[in-house]
């Protein structure tokens, strides 16, 4: 099983990870779309990591909330990639990213409605069988709720997870960003979550537009309020694998390793609190 603090594997530093000595990183998370349905350098490098670090897959383009069923060829390739990487589970986002045949390459928000709970949960329930591993959904950042919300985000998320029995990939940066953009208390949100369902936690950096809107850019170090929210979460959830995501303005690997180290300090301190509270 996964544990500790991991790092999102990016091509910017893939070679350094493959060629270099063992790093103080507990696991790497892989975007399967970067390695699926292709040969060449990157899949070859990824193969060299197998056995050196645990890998877990986190997809981007399943589009589980779209009207159209997920593409069968994509699912077959994804299943093969999950097997290749020996991922213990697979996750993707609670969103839609396609419209009919058009692929929009962005995580777009679903209406928080009872109909979408039923529809998405039915599909998510099938994913474990389709992919051959347990399936988890990530709470996304949303800058606007599309239309009138029938349900609060928390009820929508719980509804889908309970009805599908999927795991939760809890992105605490997304919770923070949403809390700023939509004006709610992120701690209250986390405290009300069913943390038993959490299979992994994501943290990342964000940025603020001149309008005040906070964007989930994955392009900066993790901000202090997000670190605090991570600690708050771990103190309640107990040990869960934590992952640092960095997709833009990617710094040197050594800097990311330092950031993982900071996260590990937060992780260890939080788990001490968790255990002390349980003792």
């Amino acid at each position, binding site marked *: 099983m996964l544990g500790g603090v991991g790092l999102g594997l990016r091509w910017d530093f893939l070679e350094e990870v493959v060629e270099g000595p063992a790093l103080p990183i507990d696991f790497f998370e892989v975007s399967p*779309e970067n390695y*699926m*349905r*292709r*040969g*060449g*350098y990157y*899949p*070859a490098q990824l193969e060299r990591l197998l056995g050196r670090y645990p890998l877990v897959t986190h997809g981007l*383009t399943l589009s589980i*909330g*779209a*009207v159209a069923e997920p*593409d069968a060829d*994509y699912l077959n390739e994804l299943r093969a990639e999950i097997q290749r990487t020996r991922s213990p589970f697979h996750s993707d986002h609670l969103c*839609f990213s*396609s*419209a*009919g*045949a*058009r*692929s*929009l*390459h*962005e995580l*777009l928000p*679903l*209406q928080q*409605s009872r*109909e*979408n709970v039923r*529809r998405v949960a039915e599909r998510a329930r099938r994913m474990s069988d389709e992919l051959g591993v347990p399936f988890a959904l990530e709470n996304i950042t949303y*800058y*606007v*709720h*599309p*239309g*009138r919300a029938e349900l609060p985000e928390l009820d929508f998320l719980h509804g889908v997870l309970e009805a599908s029995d999927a795991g939760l990939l809890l992105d605490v940066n997304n919770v923070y960003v949403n809390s700023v*953009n939509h004006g709610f208390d992120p701690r209250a949100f986390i405290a009300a979550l069913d943390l038993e369902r959490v299979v992994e936690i994501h943290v990342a950096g964000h940025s603020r*537009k001149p*309008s005040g*809107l906070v*964007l989930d850019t994955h392009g900066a170090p993790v901000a202090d309020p997000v670190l605090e929210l991570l600690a708050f979460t771990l103190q309640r959830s107990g040990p869960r694998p934590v992952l640092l995501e960095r997709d833009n303005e990617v710094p040197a690997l050594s800097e990311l390793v330092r950031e993982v180290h900071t996260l590990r300090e937060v992780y260890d301190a939080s788990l001490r609190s968790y255990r002390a509270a349980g003792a």
Partner: protein
Amino acid sequence: MQPALENVFAELVLGPPPTQSSLSELCQKHQLGADDSTALSESFARLCVYRELVRGNLREALELAMPRSVARLGPLFDEYFDRFLLERGPRTHYLRDVAPELLTFCRPLWASDARVPPYLYELAVHESLHIEVSALPSLPRGHVPAALSLELGVELSPALRLVRYGHAVHELPADEASREAPRARAVSLLVYRSPEHDVRYLELTPLARGIVERLLSGHGLGAAVQAAAAEAESALTEAVLAGAAKLLADLAERGVVRGPRAVA
């Protein structure tokens, strides 16, 4: 609701720049309920963030795939990017495949647009082939090389593309700022991935192209050489046979020729 929402989002991010009133029209066109339409209109500015994100992701993928073509097209690229998004839109799960989709869409349009240099399509294909060939599937492992035979076909690496250009776009400088025009001449280029995963380019003579083309379509080696020589209006002389042998040895050295295979 979700079908209407998908259509509204798709048109909002892929279509012309929206305004408050065009958003209302979009909602009406796709029969989004009144409450939902009002809620969307109230969040117009934030909704437009998704337009920036989607278009930014796609544009970045295209600039990465064909930077010199994008630079040479300048504002014309924006015009065709907009048309591609509006009239077709990306269909692929993989950002690396957006450039070939755009080029398939643009090919007939550019051919009839006097503002687009005649070599531009070929340059864009040439640039985007780098990513395409770097990602083509590899042969399964465990391949054991064996001697070629004139009666048998030739197993070639699947990580290659054989292309023909009417301009020597492969000779253009790598500098994105360069506006040098390529020479107009027939070019046959083998673009392949080496065993070390590097994308490499080999210009072929008409005879060599004829042989490789036929081997790719499953002809036996002897028949491929014979037909290619006939096509090049050359007799099957000792020199032609020696040239074919040299070509195959060179391709084997480069990891392109893998060994014999049954004739298709």
